[in-house]
């Protein structure tokens, strides 16, 4: 070990308690940051996955007016062919066509307004969790069948069960009167109240016939294996549809602006808190190193008299902080990581989550997700600010004159 490094290390322990206090402040904030950031990322991932996987998918191809104004006539022509083309181009079967319309659903006893989604039974389960959430009966299978799956709340409201029939009344794409009788094949429960109460699914081909859609639909839903690849996939899709200028490929942030806003709002309030924490640590480093420089003035004077330049001494101070901050980083990351791992396994409950949980289809327990990013990001910022806080005490050395320093008793 070089003498300079040895010197820096031993200098740290000249005031054991003071150094430990500063290191503890770093460790404490690092542990908190590791845990909180892991929890945040875990929560966001769950929010995104749960919301997107349930229904909207990561990317949708739509008519360019449909997202802002979902009218039945803003449709995609030749939707089944285009879906096949995208499946081929993307090399993925998580691509599925949908159509959507509003209608009045009536059972023997009651009527409710609902949203009907026409889906491709063979591929819908690749882009949505609804097919897997059927609790009674079964999901759709025959692409032409005049059948339907409905949400649990709607079933209760309509007082119907699997095997019952519903009468649907609406208007077709051409404005004509659309009416049909469908059999309830299954009842799903997603936990998302809006869906369970008002959304039903039927085979796309029957939907097209019922609502006079010809070979049209409203959305091609694409699921991407990794959230980080969304932009790349979106670009590929744009390449495929650019011959049809009336079509758009929208990503989940455009499809679900509320989700992104919720994440951003949560993130900025969290970072406000982290910012305060980091600044407190930086001040504690500043204080420690300033004291440590001041009380060594005489010693620095002598070493400068021996021929050490202020730059070397400044580097020594920076090295000392570097060692201290590395200790804080190491311990903080380690402890933070272990705590995070524990809760990643057993879950973490915090009050005030219920509202968000209901809105974004989350369990009441949160599971932090430890990754390189979540473990290192916060502590590295603490490290950086600790080093920045050392610049002032280090810079003071440039203005130290050896003669004055040695006179300072």
């Amino acid at each position, binding site marked *: 070990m*070089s*003498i*300079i490094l*040895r*010197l820096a290390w*031993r*200098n740290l322990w*000249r005031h054991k308690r003071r150094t430990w206090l500063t290191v503890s402040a770093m460790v404490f904030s690092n542990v908190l940051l590791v845990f909180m950031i892991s929890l945040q990322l875990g929560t966001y991932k769950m929010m995104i996955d749960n919301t997107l996987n349930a229904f909207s998918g990561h990317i949708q191809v739509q008519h360019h007016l449909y997202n802002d104004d979902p009218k039945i006539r803003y449709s995609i022509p030749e939707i089944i062919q285009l879906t096949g083309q995208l499946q081929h181009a993307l090399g993925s079967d998580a691509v599925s066509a949908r159509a959507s319309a509003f209608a009045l659903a009536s059972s023997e006893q009651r009527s409710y307004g609902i949203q009907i989604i026409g889906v491709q039974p063979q591929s819908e389960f690749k882009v949505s969790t609804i097919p897997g959430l059927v609790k009674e009966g079964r999901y759709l299978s025959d692409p032409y069948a005049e059948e339907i799956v409905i949400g649990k709340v709607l079933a209760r409201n309509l007082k119907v069960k699997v095997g019952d029939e519903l009468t649907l009344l609406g208007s077709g794409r051409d404005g004509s009167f659309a009416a049909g009788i469908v059999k309830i094949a299954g009842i799903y429960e997603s936990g998302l109240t809006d869906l369970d109460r008002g959304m039903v699914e039927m085979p796309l081909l029957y939907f097209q016939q019922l609502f006079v859609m010809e070979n049209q639909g409203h959305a091609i839903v694409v699921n991407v294996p990794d959230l980080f690849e969304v932009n790349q996939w979106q670009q590929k899709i744009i390449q495929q549809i650019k011959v049809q200028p009336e079509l758009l490929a929208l990503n989940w942030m455009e499809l679900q602006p509320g989700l992104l806003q919720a994440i951003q709002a949560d993130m900025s309030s969290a970072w406000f808190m982290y910012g305060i924490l980091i600044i407190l640590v930086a001040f504690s480093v500043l204080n420690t190193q300033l004291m440590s420089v001041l009380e060594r003035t*005489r*010693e620095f004077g*002598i*070493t*400068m*008299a*021996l*021929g*050490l*330049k202020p730059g*070397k001494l400044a580097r020594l101070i920076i090295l000392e902080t570097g060692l201290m901050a590395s200790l804080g980083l190491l311990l903080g990351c380690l402890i933070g990581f272990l705590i995070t791992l524990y809760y990643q396994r057993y879950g973490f409950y915090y009050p005030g989550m219920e509202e968000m949980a209901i809105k974004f289809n989350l369990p009441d327990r949160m599971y932090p997700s430890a990754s390189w990013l979540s473990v290192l990001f916060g502590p590295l910022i603490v490290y950086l600010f600790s080093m920045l806080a050392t610049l002032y005490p280090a810079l003071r050395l440039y203005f130290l*004159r*050896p*003669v004055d320093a*040695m006179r300072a008793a």
Partner: protein
Amino acid sequence: MTAISCKALCRTFQQGEVKITGLDQVTIDIDDGEFVCLSGPSGSGKTTLLNAMGGLDTPDSGQITVNSQRIDHLSKGEMADMRLHKIGFVFQAYNLIPVLTAQENIEFVMQVQGVPATKRHIKSLEVLKEVGLEGAADRLPSQLSGGQQQRVAVARAIVSKPTLILADEPTANLDTKTASQLMDLFVELNRHHKITFVISTHDQRIMTYARRLIKMQDGKIISDEKLSSAIQ
């Protein structure tokens, strides 16, 4: 050859409203290999003169030449390099870095000089032996007596083979016996390594070692005499 040449050095200090004279028209020449004592009462300007010679402080006017180089014209960095390689300093006390052992204190300066590790190790033990501290290499300054600490400082000063050692009251904190041992060491280094010594003191006994005694008062040189009776 002239080791140090000072011409008309003046230095005043401002302390609030009062002007304090540190050096007043000091002119001296010291030759290579000389063994000079600067004496004078406290406040007479000894430290100020040594600091000027070592480039720790810049006089208000006058010229200083060390090893035929005008040091009053050097930048701070050049001056630091000069001290690092050519001039050794020994102060009254607190010479050593308290968290480094005797050997590490010496190696520290050598590392700054850019000496490779193995050479550092060998050389530092060599100079410790030369000052009679071969057994104390691994001791911290706090585990050494005052005299031993001063010897380590001397060892550190001579390790880079300087041509000049400036010692500011090096014996002030030592008892008579230890002080004369340290002076014996200086005399020996002066003789064997041809290092020029300028030692300030206000101790009568130390002055008996000097071959040249310069007396100062109120920032002026009041006498400068060669002594043949010096203990050598």
